[in-house]
């Protein structure tokens, strides 16, 4: 448990920046021309970017972007995906066949490619980033929920509920979902890391939030042009991004070990 303090602290800091960054009196879009590309120093402890904007302020503003995108995307895609996957497995038949086929089609787009194409077609902006990532994100949850429901749908308590005339929606929500929650929570944790990377990736490609709004991805993209003279422009958002993703992944690993039913049985 001791090893979890720094991931937890990192994530709390991230959430704090996102939720209260607006109250910190920062000026992420304030341009101060004489301070262009200034190194970190006494004046501003993380330095300035190519337009003379303070990197610390932009880092906090970027935390807001990534937090909002990650939370909304994982919320939307976990709910949509779980419902689709659970209903598909519970109902079975042609509906299940159809949904499996649709999932296969979405999985045929490698990695972030579909999100890139969708974000590119929809145009930049935080809403379109959320749409693009959710359209891609539900698939993982649907596949997992479907697999989980398939393994437990023949259990006796579910058949009992069914024979008592309980409606399918009620069975899924009260009798099935609680049993498949653990792996879904683990999946959601890793999905947060994925969403943070994807948002930054899209913004890096110029398909995410629009300037002057800050995103860690677009900060890295701007900084890449000044690597030699001002490496802090890449390193500041880069290290922050890495720490947040690493923290989420570590927590996900821990959660998986703790919640994994098989793991617990093996320990006995």
């Amino acid at each position: 448990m001791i090893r979890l303090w720094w991931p937890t602290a990192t994530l709390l800091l991230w959430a704090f920046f996102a939720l209260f960054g607006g109250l910190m009196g920062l000026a992420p879009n304030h341009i101060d021309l004489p301070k262009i590309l200034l190194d970190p120093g006494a004046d501003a402890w993380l330095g300035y970017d190519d337009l003379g904007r303070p990197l610390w302020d932009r880092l906090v503003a970027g935390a807001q972007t990534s937090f909002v995108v990650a939370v909304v995307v994982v919320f939307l895609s976990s709910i949509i995906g779980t419902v689709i996957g659970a209903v598909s497995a519970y109902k079975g038949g042609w509906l299940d066949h159809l949904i499996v086929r649709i999932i296969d089609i979405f999985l045929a787009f490698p990695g972030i490619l579909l999100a890139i194409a969708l974000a590119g077609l929809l145009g930049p902006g935080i809403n379109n980033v959320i749409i693009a990532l959710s359209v891609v994100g539900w698939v993982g949850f649907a596949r997992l929920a479907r697999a989980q429901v398939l393994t437990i749908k023949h259990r006796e308590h579910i058949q009992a509920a069914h024979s008592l005339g309980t409606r399918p929606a009620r069975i899924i929500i009260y009798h099935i979902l609680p049993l498949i929650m653990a792996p879904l929570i683990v999946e959601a944790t890793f999905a947060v890391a994925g969403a943070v990377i994807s948002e930054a990736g899209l913004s890096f490609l110029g398909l995410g939030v629009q300037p002057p709004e800050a995103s860690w991805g677009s900060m890295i993209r701007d900084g890449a042009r000044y690597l030699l003279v001002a490496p802090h422009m890449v390193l500041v958002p880069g290290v922050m991004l890495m720490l947040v993703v690493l923290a989420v992944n570590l927590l996900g690993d821990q959660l998986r070990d703790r919640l994994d039913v098989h793991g617990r049985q093996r320990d006995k």
Partner: protein
Amino acid sequence: MLSFLFSRLASALFVIFGVTCLVFLFLHMVPGDPVEVMLGESAQPADREALRHALGLDQPLLTQFGQYMGNLLQLDLGKSLYSQRPIVDMLIERIPATVQLAVSSLVVAVLIAFPLGVLAAVKKDSHWDQGAMGLSLIGVSIPNFLMGPILILVFSLWLGWFPVSGRDGFVSLILPALTLGTAMAAILSRMVRATLLETLNEDYIRTARAKGLSERLIVWRHAMRNAMLPVITLLGLQLGVLLGGAVITEVVFSWPGLGQLTIESIQRRDYPVVQACVLVISLTYVVVNTLTDLVYGWLDPRIRLEQG
């Protein structure tokens, strides 16, 4: 074997068809009037009508789809709005660069992931294991668009060993391949570790140990052979991470491949080219995955008997 072959091919064909449908619909997902978005607001009405007609957007959706599929079967992907060149020619120009990058990244990934994964599995729960898995976790947490600039900063700008960007000889390949390869190695090494650990728990390994065989012989001769089978499938699946990640890596290093073309075309609102790129990259992925499945089925009779 034959029924396994047919069922795999049939589902692959279905997925290919579905992917093509989705890519076809891309133009209709553009908010507002795609022609106006592509040509800009200042375009002449006559030019707009001409493009609308050229893209078939003035036809009913089903007719459009029929034409699109018909053209596709004749390998006619239309013309680029930006350069007016046939898209097929543009793709053919770009494909070698992407294939070169993907294959070398795969080699890098395998060269890193196998020793790391085997080390971690053999010395399970030791410092070696923790170190290797910690390294892989850090690797997973560094995205390509961060790893790339960091490698450029250290090896190109500070040490001056490799060019910053572009595709000019073998040296220019090293940094992009490292960027993409390490990302994949991070995931792959965990999978190698997991499958090898599972295999090392098998009864026949205990038998081999009881016979007094050396640990090296047990791991490399007995366990690895069986552990490699699932890894082959995982390699096929990981190709998705590779092809998707290649898009960003190509942009970071100005590597003139399909990914860079995709992003350039998005920026130029040259949507027919975007469609073609996404289609080619995705279909490659589907084909490679189907092939890995078939190879797997051929190598391991249990698979084809189960599914067939």
